[in-house]
C-alpha cells in the first residue's frame, strides 16, 4: 500500500497485491509537481499548441494506466463496451478516484451527435494557475483532457479530447469544459 506498512520485496511489480488506493498526499505536493511538469514542457516548445499537446501526452500516459488499474480494482476485470457506459465511468469513477469527486456535469453536445462535454467549475489542475495574458487560450486542463483520452482510447473508444475555459456569469473564474469528440468509427456502428 502506498504510505503504510513496510515495503515488501516482490520479484515483479505485477506480483504485488493491488492497493485499495485510499492513500493521499498533500494537494500542494501535487501542485508543486504539476507546476514543474508545465514549466519543464514550456522549455521544450515554441508555441501554446505544442505545449498543450505535450501536457496532453503526459495525461494520456496517466489515463491509460488509470483505466487498467480501475478495471482491475473497481470493476472486477470488466471494461465498459458501451459508449454511455464508458463516459459515465470517466465522469464518475475515474473523476472520483483522481479528483475526489464526481465531475460537475456530463452533457451531450447539442450541435453534433458525436460530441460530449465534461465540465468542472474548478478543475484541480487549474486551481493554482493563472494564465498570463500573452499565453492566450492556453489551458492546463489539457493534461486532464489527455487523461480522458487515455482512458477512452484504452477502452476502445478513440476520441479527440480538448480542454476549454468557459466564462461563467457572475463568477470570477471560468469553468473548464473537457470536450470529447469521438472518432467516426465509434459513432457509425
Amino acid at each position: 500500500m502506498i504510505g503504510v506498512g513496510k515495503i515488501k520485496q516482490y520479484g515483479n511489480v505485477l506480483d504485488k497485491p493491488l492497493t485499495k488506493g485510499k492513500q493521499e498526499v498533500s494537494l500542494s505536493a501535487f501542485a508543486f509537481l504539476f507546476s514543474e511538469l508545465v514549466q519543464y514542457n514550456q522549455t521544450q516548445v515554441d508555441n501554446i499548441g505544442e505545449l498543450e499537446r505535450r501536457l496532453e501526452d503526459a495525461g494520456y500516459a496517466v489515463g491509460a494506466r488509470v483505466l487498467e488499474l480501475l478495471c482491475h480494482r473497481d470493476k472486477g476485470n470488466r471494461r465498459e463496451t458501451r459508449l454511455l457506459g464508458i463516459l459515465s465511468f470517466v465522469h464518475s469513477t475515474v473523476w472520483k478516484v483522481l479528483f475526489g469527486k464526481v465531475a460537475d456535469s456530463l452533457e451531450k453536445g447539442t450541435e453534433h451527435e458525436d460530441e460530449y462535454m465534461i465540465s468542472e467549475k474548478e478543475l484541480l489542475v487549474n486551481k493554482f494557475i493563472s494564465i498570463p495574458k500573452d499565453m492566450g487560450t492556453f489551458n492546463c486542463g489539457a493534461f486532464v483532457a489527455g487523461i480522458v483520452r487515455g482512458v477512452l482510447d484504452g477502452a476502445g473508444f478513440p476520441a479527440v479530447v480538448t480542454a476549454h475555459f468557459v466564462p461563467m456569469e457572475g463568477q470570477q473564474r471560468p469553468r473548464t469544459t473537457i470536450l470529447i469528440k469521438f472518432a467516426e468509427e465509434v459513432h457509425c456502428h
Partner: protein
Amino acid sequence: MAPVAPRTGDAIFANVERVNAELFTLTYGAIVRQLLTDLEEVEEVNKQLDQMGYNIGIRLIDEFLAKSNVSRCNDFRETTDVIAKVGFKMFLGVTASVTNWDADGTCCSIVLEDNPLVDFVELPDNCQGLYYCNILSGVIRGALDMVSMKTEVTWLRDVLRGDDVFELQVKLLKHVPEEYPYKDDE
C-alpha cells in the same frame, strides 16, 4: 507574544487539502517518462529531476515554515529530524527516520520505508542508472538552501534497485552566513 508551539507532521497533514496519492504517483511517472524520451541519457534525466526538485524545494520551504511553526533549528541534527518527521509527513503523508550520524554531526541518512513516488514502478533494464526519485533529493537541497544551509544529498539505497529501503545521505557542506543589514530596496 508567546512563541507558537511547532506542530506535528500528523496534525498538519490532517488539516491540509489532500489528493489521491495515485494521481500524484502516476503524474510523476509521466514526468519521468517524458524526460527519458526527451533527454535519452539516464544521467541527464537524473540531473533534470534533481533540478526540478530544487525548484520545488526553494518554494516549498515557505509553505513548510508557514504551516509548521518551526523556528530556527539549533543544529543540523534538529534540522534533519524536522525534515524526516514533519516535512515528509506534511507533504507526502509518510514518515522517515534519521540514522547513521557521523562523529561531527554534519552527515546523516534519512531512511524512507514508504515512498509514494514508486508505486506501480519497475525499472526496465535500460534504466538501471536512473535515480527514479531524484526529485526528492533536489527538494531537500533546495529547501535547505533557502535556510542558509548548503548540502549535498545522495542516494545510498533504493528499493527500485533491489535494496530494502530508500536511504538518502544528507551532508552539510556549510552554513551560509546571512548578510546584514538586508537591503530590500535593491
